């Protein structure tokens, strides 16, 4: 280690891995992974989202899972929590939908009406 810059390089690289633990994320995507969700393809949806986060380098976004929310016919469902914004719930989110939601809502902040299930608390 010759200088502080080298240290900061390690710091920034590792930070992403620690993000989940420091709670400093801005966006949280909750994928409903109940039996119904999994049957409808929620796992594939989730994997798509995880890949996108890595590909687009958005370390302030995390994906977590929850159980069935009680709207089984809408699965796969995702809930999107963005800091200072009302939560949004999307239904029937297959891989293609996940890509579109990621592109428009997460990166640009535009709600994708097509898949919208509900807004607010």
């Amino acid at each position, binding site marked *: *280690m*010759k*200088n*502080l810059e080298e*240290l*900061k390089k*390690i*710091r920034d*690289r*590792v*930070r*992403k*891995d*620690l993000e*989940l*633990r*420091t*709670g*400093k*994320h801005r966006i*949280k995507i909750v*994928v*409903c*992974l*109940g*039996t119904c969700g999994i049957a409808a393809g929620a796992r594939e949806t*989730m994997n798509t989202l*995880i*890949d996108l*986060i*890595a*590909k687009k*380098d958005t*370390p302030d976004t*995390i*994906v*977590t*899972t*929850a*159980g069935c929310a009680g709207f089984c016919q809408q699965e796969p469902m995702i809930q999107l929590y963005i800091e200072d914004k009302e939560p949004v719930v999307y239904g029937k989110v297959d891989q293609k939908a996940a890509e579109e939601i990621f592109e428009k809502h997460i990166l640009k902040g535009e709600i994708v009406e097509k898949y919208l299930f509900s807004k607010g608390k």
Partner: protein
Amino acid sequence: MSKRSIAQVLVGIDGNTVLFGARKIKTKLITEMHKHGLSEQVQVIETGSIGPANQGVIIGVYPAGEMYGNITEEEVVEFVQERFVKGRPYKKLLLSEKLPAGIDLTAYDSRKTQYLGRIVLDNCGKINPEDIEEYIGMRGYEALGIILKEKTSEEVIKIVRDSGLKGRGGAGFPTGLKWSFTAKVKDTPKYVICNADEGEPGTFKDRLIMEGDPHKVLEGMAICGYAIGANTGYIYIRGEYQLSIQRLEKAIKDAEKLGLLGENIFGTDFDFQVKIKIGAGSYVCGEETALLTSMEGFRGEPRFKPPFPAESGFLAKPTNINNVETFANIAPIILNGAEWFKKLGTESSSGTKVYTVLGHIKRSGLIEVPMGVTLREIIYDYAGGMSSGNFKMTQIGGTAGNLLSSEFLDVPLDFQSLKEVGYSLGSGAVLIMNETVSVVDFIKCCMKFFVHESCGKCTPCREGTRYAYEILDKISLGKGKADDIESLKLLGESMKDSSFCPFGQSAPNSLLNSLSLFPEEYNNLLIK
């Protein structure tokens, strides 16, 4: 670009949980994740103590912040199935506490949550203590880098002094002032010693700091070395602390590999190496002068002060001795500034204090709270209230500390407030007892400890502890007489006044407190 995991499971591996099979549970978790094809999505990580101490193996799940206790190897199968395959909390073992994620120090006013405001334990239970990069990810070694590049040693001492940090080893001496004494002395070489003897019964905060975040202690020591002009540091650690020793050794090696310890740190001309010295487990060796004697290879007996270690310490060279927790406060102070530190705690005592809370309470374990939090808050807000019965008394600061009755529940716990009522904060042990504990039996038990640990150098302490124990024994068996109480008082006072070192001076603390707070407990046992 590597794929990011969506969840991380942290297994708290410390001296306690190892005994409950924490390592096996970690392996089992990894196997189960693999079985379900979740290895990439869910990372299993080893960390230090997560906090609770009477709940078996503790694991944490991030980012949900869930904490699970008492998990067994068999139960891991169902846990992984429920929590990660089905994706819902595993209610059976879920604890009410939350993990420390994302709670900032700013939330000073609502002191209600356990993990609010951590400085010393900020990384404990969050990072893998055996991975130096994770420490660096939490801004580790940045403080050291900054001072080496930008600050003179006087400036570093000034920051520590302005922060108001006081020693966390018991006596509460201002740390910046202590550093300035050693810095002033011309003689070389100088030494930095970290006191990790932690012999005080009921105190295990230093162990959990070293097990959970060893680099923070090393960084604090290196900063001290730069400030006082020392190139060698020693950690005097008790031999029972195997896991701490292992993790410290690994930490030292890793830091040396990256050039963060050793020669030419950060490419400057500052060298600092850290060595570990293992103690043989005598309580008095925690006292700084006895510690020095022991380090020099002699029987651990205290020396006369002055000269103070700052002038003539290890091998008669200028030496600065601080406690583990004291060193762990240094890097955060440098990074955030003295003013930031002063905002936490009370006027006389800045910052936070790490306590180990034990006894008849619902949640025992490790907490870090701002200085000035009261005993009532510790018991009812942090420790979840009494586990059974009603509050009777508490002993703070370990066996050499003070005994407090319910009148003291609302005294702020900080150096000054306790001094005003004639007490001291001590090591950070908080032992809470309900009405089922007999005062006389308890004090007798404490005295037995001192009889065993007295080094024997001076008469008041060697003989005093023994006589006091015998009288207490007699009273507890219902054979005491009224004048025995007077003898106890006289003995206690004489030990306080005439013992050679603070060991004998503090041994009768709780005894004397108990005589004035609970005289009826003694009287009831006397022959009428």
